[in-house]
């Protein structure tokens, strides 16, 4: 059976839904199913695990819920759901949102090692006010109040200079 949406690939996903007693059935290929946010059960496991590590990062979300990546249109909520970025540009758009997650996964947020010859513009924003605010929220949550106070003063100073 062909996918009912693209009419090109073989339908591999069968979705049966009941809404207000009305039953609908759809047959999609993997690609179209993925576009509609329906993924195979087989990769649900790892995706969920990666996504759950985004939990706190999403709660902070310094870029705001409305912010979208210019290149692929992803919001940070989209990224947290799958645990995966939409395009390379996402890392620039959501740099500060990614930081707490990256610290948890890698223990570091600074690349050491081979550098690409054609290095593009830095993802890290020149103005790190948002990063400081994110760090402050994390420190407060971890009840590290002494360090938090130092960051708070730094933020105040930066905001005064704006």
């Amino acid at each position, binding site marked *: 059976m062909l996918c009912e949406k693209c009419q090109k*690939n073989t339908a591999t996903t069968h979705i049966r839904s009941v809404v207000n007693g009305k039953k609908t059935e759809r047959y999609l290929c*993997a*690609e179209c199913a*993925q576009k509609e946010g329906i993924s195979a059960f087989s*990769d649900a496991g790892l995706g969920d695990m*990666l996504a759950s590590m985004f939990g706190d990062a999403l709660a902070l979300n310094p870029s705001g819920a409305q912010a979208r990546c210019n*290149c*692929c249109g992803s919001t940070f909520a989209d990224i947290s759901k799958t*645990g*995966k*970025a*939409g*395009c*390379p540009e996402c*890392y*620039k758009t959501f740099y500060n949102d*990614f930081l707490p*997650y*990256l610290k948890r*996964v*890698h*223990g*570091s*947020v*600074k*690349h*050491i*090692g*081979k*550098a*690409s*010859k*054609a*290095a*593009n513009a*830095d*993802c*890290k924003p020149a103005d790190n006010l948002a990063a400081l605010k994110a760090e402050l929220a994390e420190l407060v949550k971890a009840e590290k109040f002494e360090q938090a106070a130092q960051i708070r003063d730094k933020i105040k100073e930066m905001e005064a200079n704006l």
Partner: protein
Amino acid sequence: MSCWYNNPAPEGDIAVSTRIRLARNINGYPFPARMSAAQRQEVNAKIKDVIDNNSSSNLKYIDMAAVPENERFSMVERHIASREFVLNPQNKAIIISDDETVSIMIGEEDHIRIQVVLPGFQLENAYKIADDIDNMLCGALDIAFDSELGYLTECPTNLGTGLRASVMLHLPVSEQTGEMLRLTESVNKIGFTVRGMYGEGSNAAGSLYQISNQITLGISEKNAIDNLKIIADRIIGKERELQKSLNKIKTEDICMRALGTLKSARILSSSELITLISRVKLGINKGVISDNINPIKILIEGQPYMLMKTHGTMTDEERDIYRAQTVREALS
């Protein structure tokens, strides 16, 4: 056909293979999961151009959609492509070297996945080959890279070096003595993972384990590889020590019975093959079975799609009979 497992394997008594993978992406495109067919074809063409313009390379560009299903799935069994990659071949391509040591998947999770597989334990050699390919291929492309986050990849767990280094080891005695559980725990603590190569969950069929690095950001390629080398060295050393201490006659009995079954079976399932090959491999280490036998070659060439790619599609039953026949021939 020449393939990586036909070449000599350093430390091959325990180490089966070494694999290096580098993840790279091109600026200006979404990651493959979000790419349109047209965008995928554009990226494929860009990469094909670089390969075509490099006459010194022995690399061949293959459009995955044109590869028959049996051949496609056999690539997974030869460890040159991932299952996710071959499952849906539309608008994907693979670049392979003559001996299949180098395979570059285009349109897997990332735009470019450079992979090098060498037999035995050869981390530095494998990385050198991968690094040269990276310089040749990515030097000619606008690669997504950031000075803080390194190579930008779809999954944030690959950011930084984009490097996954792994070693496949045959650890029958470590497994039997429970040493493996202790090992897995301590390896996990230092940012490396251990998983069974075949079989599902914690059950590692054939006692084949893969050890790989997890952390890619904040650690250089050299350090990640050196760390894996130290860990694998220790595991290999421990397994050798344990193999030496085995009861001679009992071990010989188990290994020779396995060889006997492989030489005479008329019906042979994949799972029986892997169990028996594991014992034959141990028998070679113990010097009771001739080292003219290449157990890894027999194991890989006895996988379902490897058999069907030359013989045509078969039912499970037909395949088990054909598998028994090819194994008998390989051992005669």
